[in-house]
């Protein structure tokens, strides 16, 4: 027997749960503006998320998938991207989407049952929410192929969960990305649960990062509650991709502190203790502590930020609630570039039967 290949999976964390550096911090951790900017987005994301759950509970929003606990992963990955890179999200990466310029009102519209929520005014080339698990991994690979073919220095990033790593599409995407050295980063957000299925039932692997080995691309595991680690390693992966060296898988280990969605009741299948423990690792505290320790943050700034965020969210909610329904014919008018003749009759029929639903929010 002869060893013909060997692989190592590394783990990286820069800030421990208490906000103390646990490793040589990278340059970006010395740039207070960058850190504050990310922290600001993390807080806004959480305020938004809390409000959205509230809207759902009061019947003003449909089923909603909370991102509680994922803020560092989501903001970190988006902060690492360049504007003309392309994001192919799953369905709960609000932190990343907001960072990239999707508006809060758009996100609410989506979960409020209105397609206009995916017509982002901001990042026009980003892919919309993607509910069919892991299918978006192929879109990021395809986008990367387009960039590569046109010789553009752009990258694609897709995001999927621990559950998503069980879908064939995830491996197929990594495999072609490896084979063609595509400029793409596969973010795997390991929040330990896929609805009620814990990671241990999902796969026998010790890490999700090692799934990259199957595609011949590098994989790394980072502390997904450490925004510095996430941003640093995604930046490195993107630099590598932009440099023509191909794809990387970045596994961010975090925890879904909420129910899966507002339609779920996680107490049915997971222990309270587990969630309590996870709260101790949550991502906002540690970066705030670090910012405080380096002297760029204080309680006053915190209060100002919270107030600002609340206003921003409230404005978005108002804008969302005030947006009238789309006309009925909208369901026809975007199906094709030009409406095929046979649909005209159906379109007329739909209009004729008018508004047979309250069209309420939620």
């Amino acid at each position, binding site marked *: 027997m002869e060893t013909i290949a060997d692989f190592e999976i590394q783990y990286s964390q820069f800030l421990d749960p208490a906000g103390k550096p646990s490793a040589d911090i990278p340059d970006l951790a010395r740039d207070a503006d960058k850190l504050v900017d990310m922290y600001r987005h993390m807080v806004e994301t959480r305020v938004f998320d809390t409000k959205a759950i509230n809207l759902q509970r009061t019947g003003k929003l*449909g*089923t909603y998938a909370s991102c509680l606990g994922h803020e560092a992963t989501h903001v970190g990955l988006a902060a690492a991207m360049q504007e003309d890179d392309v994001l192919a999200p799953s*369905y709960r990466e609000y932190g990343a989407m907001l960072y990239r310029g999707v508006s809060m009102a758009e996100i609410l519209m*989506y*979960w*409020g*049952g*209105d*397609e206009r929520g995916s017509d982002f005014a901001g990042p026009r080339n980003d892919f919309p*929410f993607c*509910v*069919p*698990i892991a299918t978006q991994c192929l879109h990021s690979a395809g986008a990367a192929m387009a960039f590569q073919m046109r010789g553009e220095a752009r990258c694609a990033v897709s995001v999927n969960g621990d*559950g*998503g790593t*069980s*879908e*064939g599409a995830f491996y197929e995407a990594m495999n072609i990305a490896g084979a063609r050295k595509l400029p793409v980063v596969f973010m795997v957000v390991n929040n330990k649960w*896929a*609805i*009620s*299925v814990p990671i241990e*039932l*999902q*796969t026998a692997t010790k890490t999700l990062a090692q799934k990259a080995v199957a595609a011949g691309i590098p994989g790394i595991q980072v502390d997904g509650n450490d925004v510095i680690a996430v941003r640093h390693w995604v930046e490195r992966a993107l630099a590598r991709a932009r440099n023509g060296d191909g794809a990387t898988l970045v596994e961010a280990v975090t925890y879904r502190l909420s129910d899966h969605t507002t*339609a*779920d009741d996680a107490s*049915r*299948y997971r222990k309270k203790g587990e969630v309590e423990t996870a709260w101790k690792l949550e991502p906002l505290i540690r970066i705030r502590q670090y910012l405080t320790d380096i002297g760029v943050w204080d309680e006053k700034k915190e209060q100002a930020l919270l107030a600002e965020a609340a206003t921003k969210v409230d404005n978005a909610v108002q804008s969302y609630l005030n947006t009238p*329904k*789309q006309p*009925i014919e*909208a*369901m*026809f008018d975007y*199906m094709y570039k030009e409406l095929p003749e*046979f*649909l005209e009759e*159906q*379109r007329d*029929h*739909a209009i004729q*039967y*008018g*508004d*047979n*639903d309250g*069209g309420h*929010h*939620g």
Partner: protein
Amino acid sequence: MAEVTLIDAVTMALAWELEHDSRVVVLGEDVGVNGGVFRATAGLQTRFGAERVLDTPLAEGMIAGVAIGMAAQGMIPVPEIQFMGFIYPTVDQIINHAGRLRNRTRGRLSCPMVLRAPYGGGIHAPEHHSESTEALFAHMPGVRVVIPSSPARAYGLLLAAIRDPDPVIFLEPKRIYRLNKQNVEDNGKALPLDVCYTLRQGTDITIVTWGAMTFETLKAVDQLAKSNISCEVIDLATISPIDYETILESVEKTGRLVIVHEAARTCGVGAEVAAIVAEKGLYDLKAPIRRVTGYDVVMPLFRREMDYMPSVSKIVDAVRETLDD
């Protein structure tokens, strides 16, 4: 006898078969500890153990393929696909294997399995959670497609599906999972597959429908009854193969046919029903056939989903127009 909802009846039928046939296994995403996102498998894992009611990794193609492998080797798997919008990764395994295994081995191997999935709109669910694409499966040789529309039929047809020696796609109209209750005796008695169920006798017009649309249809029929219009309502129930004799007999009597389904119109199962009547019952027809269906568009997100769906007034008008023709 218990007053149960449609979804209760599904649970009851699964429990009955798990209890009485050791080959039966329930598998899928979140079907175990969580009891299914709609709770169709609630309590089953506690009762029958995690080896017989098991949570799988998240991969529908895998669930279907593994079920086929199990079925070929003597088990009776009953996989759940969480929503019909996520059933498409199974298509390859269903059409290329489940529906063919018996035929291509000349009966040496077979594929007794029931792939369950909730389907249909009207519950204000997120994107991809409201689809009705039963026609895709109805076009596949070797595969049965069954849709119950009442607690009693859910119980009896699911038992029949599990006992059937061939693969069945069992689609559950989630909009009516909890809409009404019915007395259903938990006696293990199956209902026949491959037959329609006539829900109302009538003389003026035949309405063929299935799933949640039976409710809209019955409401429409009640309304029409006030104008002394007598509708015969046929629940297709087994979508494939279609019991066309019952339909043809009814059209022979009424001379008029309206088909109601939630799926997009083009190449929906309603087309097949219409085609059969245009072939075998043409001379009985006194008026054009009408289809009241979902439009040929993507199911809208929920603020507009009801505008997509066949409604009582759309059905009433289609019936009236057909009678006026």
